[in-house]
């Protein structure tokens, strides 16, 4: 079983049904930490988000655990499988970037699955756990529906790149599902959103994969605090110069430019999205711009949205720091209300 299949299977595991349902039993010696996932996650279809949350809750346990980096056993350097005493953690580790947590799930499921597969190697803990993982996941992945496998698949070269997950803490967020028809394919949902916001000038969009769906992000947009900005300035981020009135000139002279900037991210998924605690940084904006694709991949667009799919509008608002090394910082002082952001997009 190759690494890519292994990781696909891992994603399926956390998105799939209960370990109890799949394997017919639960290890009786499951500890409390394991129960966080077994009881709250694996018997639900929103497993990935809950698994990540469980991973967070296990911060203290993680620090004390014997970590086992199995990268040397994995031919693909982008992924790391770490095994602690109770959990398997899957990390996506792009070169020169901080690893992104993709999933965490209990070893108990693996222990249980191993019962069905004869003797395991005993020469090393790392290899032992790795083989358990392989065997368990290959069995469990066979139980997943093709659509769910598709949408919970790990980054795939033919698919859109992953939006860092969970998403950064937004300036404001809203459920805008009622403005769109969600009982259709993801491609159709993307088309509905695109046609709705294009008339408002949002003609450049970046598409990403997210667990259970996709995300689309608009370009960085300048928003004037006092009246609209000129069309030529709307999609720029540097100092724009000029002035509109004597009062405006005086304010620029004394205080400097104080424009707002914002990025909208539509997240379409069947998961209950739980945000990261970190705010978005200028680097994140650059990364979104650099890695996003201009359209949804054919394979993802053709998949029918999973039951319970909702459309979330994330608004990230920034201001430019006025220091010498000017950069965009998330505006936590006086962000726009979500209703103002929805109005800008033409949403009710």
């Amino acid at each position, binding site marked *: 079983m190759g690494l890519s299949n292994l990781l696909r299977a891992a994603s399926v595991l956390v998105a799939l049904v209960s370990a109890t349902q799949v394997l017919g039993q639960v290890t009786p010696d499951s500890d409390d930490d394991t129960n966080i996932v077994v009881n709250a996650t694996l018997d639900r279809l929103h497993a990935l988000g809950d698994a990540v949350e469980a991973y967070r809750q296990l911060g203290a346990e993680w620090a004390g655990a014997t970590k086992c980096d199995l990268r040397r056993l994995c031919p693909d350097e982008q992924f790391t499988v770490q095994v602690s005493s109770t959990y398997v953690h899957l990390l996506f580790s792009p070169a020169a970037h901080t690893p992104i947590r993709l999933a965490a799930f209990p070893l108990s499921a693996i222990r249980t699955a191993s019962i069905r597969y004869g003797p395991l190697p005993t020469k090393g803990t790392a290899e032992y756990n790795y083989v358990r993982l392989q065997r368990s996941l290959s069995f469990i992945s066979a139980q997943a529906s093709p659509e769910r496998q598709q949408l919970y698949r790990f980054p795939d070269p033919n698919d859109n790149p992953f939006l860092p997950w969970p998403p950064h803490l937004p300036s404001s967020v809203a459920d805008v599902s009622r403005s769109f028809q969600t009982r259709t394919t993801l491609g159709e949902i993307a088309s509905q959103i695109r046609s709705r916001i294009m008339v408002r000038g949002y003609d450049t969009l970046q598409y990403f994969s997210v667990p259970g769906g996709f995300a689309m992000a608009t370009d960085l947009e300048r928003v004037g605090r006092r009246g609209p900005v000129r069309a030529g300035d709307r999609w720029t981020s*540097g*100092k*724009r*110069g*000029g*002035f509109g009135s004597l009062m405006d*000139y005086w304010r*620029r*002279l*004394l*205080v*400097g430019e104080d424009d707002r900037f914002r990025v909208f991210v539509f997240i379409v998924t069947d998961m209950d999205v739980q945000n990261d605690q970190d705010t978005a940084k200028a680097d994140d904006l650059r990364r979104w711009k650099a890695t996003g694709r201009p359209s949804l991949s054919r394979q993802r667009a053709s998949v029918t949205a999973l039951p319970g799919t909702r459309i979330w509008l994330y608004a990230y608002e920034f201001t430019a*720091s*006025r*220091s*010498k090394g*000017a950069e965009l910082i998330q505006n936590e002082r006086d962000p726009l209300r979500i209703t103002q952001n929805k109005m800008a997009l033409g949403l009710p």
Partner: protein
Amino acid sequence: MTRQAALQRVLVIWLIAAAIFAVFTLAQVLAGKYGDDPGVPLNWLSAQIVPVMGLLLAATLSSPSANWKKAQVTGSRYQLALTASLVQIIAILITFLIEPILQTSPFALFDSTIVFFSIWQGVVTACVGGLVFDGR
């Protein structure tokens, strides 16, 4: 016009200009215009003002002879010191006033003008020095 009066006139012009620029820059700093780098505009401004102000204050605080004080100033030296000073002050003022309408950041503007202003500051100091030391 006596040398003493000419010197005092140039000093007053510089004192008024320095006070206005200092208050204005301080107001900008307090309003947050320069974010975490308030030292940059203050450094730039002090480089334009401190050398000539130091020379003028030293001349005022010293005790020249009564003859020097009462002697008539050489017209060309006075005109030169006054003109060079006014050019410098107006150039500083224009730099501040034009910055908001440029697309260049104030920091970049200070960086790009500091060389020219420093050279001109040397000229101003020489002209004012000619006025101060003439006949002492």
